[in-house]
């Protein structure tokens, strides 16, 4: 069994491709990169007074950055100041050669993985975090549960029982593994395709289904569309819906955590499409400037509804965008549960110990349609979908690995699936039969305390409903 070995060099190896980029002058020497995994993960970082903008920050992209939130490193090299440009932001060496940094490189940033498609550990690869039986079985079970829940709820929408649904097919590992790698104190800000993370944290099938049906047992009081889950109890911030709004919010929450010096970070999810939003720029830039402990996880699933990534950006995916903000980044195989787990564990450690943001681009194809309002066969080939659905399924891949370890059997599989199906059918039945939220909930929570106009309006509405009860649906409780 591979062990958690060689921390620094392993990870850096994948990122060394960037060292191929043209370096400028003496100051450009890249000393192993600024993504070096801290050798002492337990060291807490002191809060730094915010430095003036001109000190320490990069004038050139490729200088060594500090690893910890300590005082900025002085630039040691050149004594002959006239060879350097002393400019707000830091010294930068001059050059007489006019050379543009290329917009892209022949070799793209490689994608970190641990398991092959056959579910076996990659030969020679040992740079990952060990997962024990208990953890692996929970991860796998939750992935299966998510898949089955999605299947049933999608069908429920097709049958007209709920109005809307979004599946996570193909991205089960991409959302459950990160949750497994975090602690319950870490705050998650989802986009809208991360119920896997909430499932991991203990949200029950009944709670999921209640939210989709918008009944009176819904923790969200029937305020939101289906799949717009939220639970402060589980540190899962309610889905906001507009794309990327959660990114600057995440930077703000992380800054607050930092002020509290908590051993926790914020994890904000975003899709490939969301990286085009203005809030993506604001959120990442801010997090970097504020030195906030936030992990930005970009679920690059290849499609933003019907827009392929080739129409979304012209960069080498999302991973290279981090560098523009001074944020360490990694590209990981989102269908590989172990790779995602390891990467997020490392990212979390970096974020908290070094008090800085980290960007993780997770590649996992969106097998399902964007939502129940979408038919993706209209803009992509059936073959493509089929290929990712069968040959590259993250759940199958992980199962093979778990089975190879002797931790899972056919019997376990059958039992798990039948159990989940039974629970789900029951949950749907119960949710469907439960009343909708009472009238009071129309007026509560607009403000902290109900304002006088709403109190009055509720009173008038009740009077009207009582007087003309035949005009109102019978399943709206007045209580």
């Amino acid at each position, binding site marked *: 069994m591979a062990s958690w070995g060689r921390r620094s060099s392993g990870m850096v190896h994948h990122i060394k491709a960037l060292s191929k980029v043209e370096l400028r002058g003496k100051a450009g020497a890249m000393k192993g990169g600024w993504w070096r995994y801290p050798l002492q993960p337990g060291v807490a970082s002191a*809060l730094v*007074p*915010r430095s003036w903008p001109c000190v320490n920050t990069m004038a050139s992209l490729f200088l060594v950055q500090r690893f910890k939130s300590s005082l900025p490193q002085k630039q040691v090299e050149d004594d002959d100041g006239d060879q350097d440009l002393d400019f707000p932001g830091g010294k930068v060496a001059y050059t007489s050669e006019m050379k543009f940094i290329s917009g892209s490189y022949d070799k793209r940033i490689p994608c970190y993985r641990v398991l092959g498609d056959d579910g076996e550990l990659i030969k020679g690869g040992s740079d990952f975090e060990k997962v024990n039986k208990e953890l692996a079985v929970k991860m796998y079970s939750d992935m299966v549960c998510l898949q089955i829940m999605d299947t049933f709820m999608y069908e429920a929408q097709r049958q007209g029982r709920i109005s809307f649904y979004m599946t996570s097919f193909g991205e089960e590992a991409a959302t459950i593994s990160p949750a497994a790698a975090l602690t319950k104190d870490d*705050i998650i800000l989802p986009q809208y395709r991360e119920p896997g993370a909430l499932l991991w944290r203990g949200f029950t099938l009944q709670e999921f289904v209640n939210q989709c049906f918008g009944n009176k047992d*819904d*923790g*969200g*009081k029937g*305020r*939101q569309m289906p799949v*717009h889950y*939220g*639970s*402060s109890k589980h540190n899962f*911030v*309610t889905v*906001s*819906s*507009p794309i990327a*709004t959660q*990114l*600057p*919010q*995440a*930077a*703000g*929450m*992380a*800054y*607050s*955590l930092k*002020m*509290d010096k908590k051993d926790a970070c914020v994890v904000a999810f975003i899709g490939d499409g969301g990286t085009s939003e*203005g*809030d993506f*720029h*604001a*959120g990442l*830039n*801010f997090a970097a*400037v*504020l030195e906030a402990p936030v992990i930005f996880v970009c679920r690059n699933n290849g499609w933003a509804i019907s827009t392929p990534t080739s129409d979304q950006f012209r960069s080498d995916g999302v991973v290279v965008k981090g560098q523009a903000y001074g944020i360490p980044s990694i590209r990981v195989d989102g269908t590989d549960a172990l790779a995602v787990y390891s990467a997020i564990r490392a990212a979390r450690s970096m974020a908290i110990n070094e008090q800085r943001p980290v960007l993780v681009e997770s590649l996992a194809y969106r097998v399902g349609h964007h939502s129940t309002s979408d038919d993706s066969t209209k803009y992509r080939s059936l073959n493509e979908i089929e290929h990712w659905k069968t040959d590259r399924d993250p759940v199958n891949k992980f199962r093979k690995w778990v089975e190879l370890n002797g931790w899972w059997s056919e019997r376990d599989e059958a039992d798990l699936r039948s159990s989940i199906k039974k629970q789900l059918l029951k949950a749907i039945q119960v949710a469907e039969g439960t009343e909708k939220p009472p009238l009071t*909930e129309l007026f*509560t*929570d*607009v*403000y*902290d305390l109900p*304002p*006088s*106009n709403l109190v009055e309006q509720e009173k008038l509405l009740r009077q009207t409903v009582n007087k003309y009860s035949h005009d109102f649906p019978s399943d709206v409780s007045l209580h």
Partner: protein
Amino acid sequence: MLAIARQRMLGQSFKKILPAVSVLRSYSSAAKQVIFFTFFILAHNLMHTDMVGEYQGAYKITKGLLEKYGPERVLDTPITEAGFTGIGVGAAYYGLKPVVEFMTFNFSMQAIDHIINSAAKSNYMSAGQISVPIVFRGPNGAAAGVGAQHSQCYAVWYASCPGLKVLSPYNSEDARGLLKAAIRDPDPVVFLENELLYGESFPVSDEVLDSSFCLPIGKAKIEREGKDATITAFSKMAAEMLEKDGICAEVINLRSIRPLDRATINASVRKTNRLITVEEGFPQHGVGAEICASVVEESFSYLDAPVERIAGADVPMPYAANLERMAVPQVEDIVRAAKRACYRSVPLAATA
């Protein structure tokens, strides 16, 4: 390292301010004194000492706070309204009490999604799980010679949204009391100041100078009692009203645009039987329109004359000084409207 007070510790950290040497306090210093007690401020260009126009804008308010409280609590941010409003909201989700400053509310347009969808609606959409105790403040409305993109009044944009509270102080007393109330309030509050008033001084009582002075949100103030007509105004417009005489008008300083103090307004109209609403902003769907509708709904039979609405011209604000003056209500316009309402002059329709 400064202690970061939680929402509950709010009361304990308010200290007594300077003893009242002079009874005059400027609008801006009143606001500043309140912000000394806030916990987290976000604005860009905090060190900037001059800005567009001659009036030094919002910076006078936060001057000195950075030195006193340090860069951790008073943040000079990159220029992205969407960004710093977003992070302010995020910090509020977690439990801090941010005060987000816009150089002018015109720039809040770039952040309005976060104000409306991330702040105003969050408590409701999360079923009470996410409370957002944030204050958005800054100059609003016309300044002088700053053109259309720096002169719009956003009172009604924000006042139409449930989940937000919208306040607009007129004098130093208002600035102090309302800002404190805004920061203490657990709901998101939009605090619309007025750039031209920053430099003005107003007499204040000892009560106002007391450190615990706070005004209730949702209550208008009757600046001057009268019997012939009711004039409602807010922010800078109230200043104009007090200078007017001839008709014994009752002047109501709204203070709170949302929630609107309909009770006070209606009680006053029932006494005077005539209403003139005054605002600087554009006329359509303005504050005056809402007040008029409210009075028509609740006090129709008390009205002896149609409601007169005075508002800014229905054009983007021009720059040229003469045109600008024509685009904003002047005292004379209000006097004429009051006379029409009191039938001392010919009604508008008759002149057509």
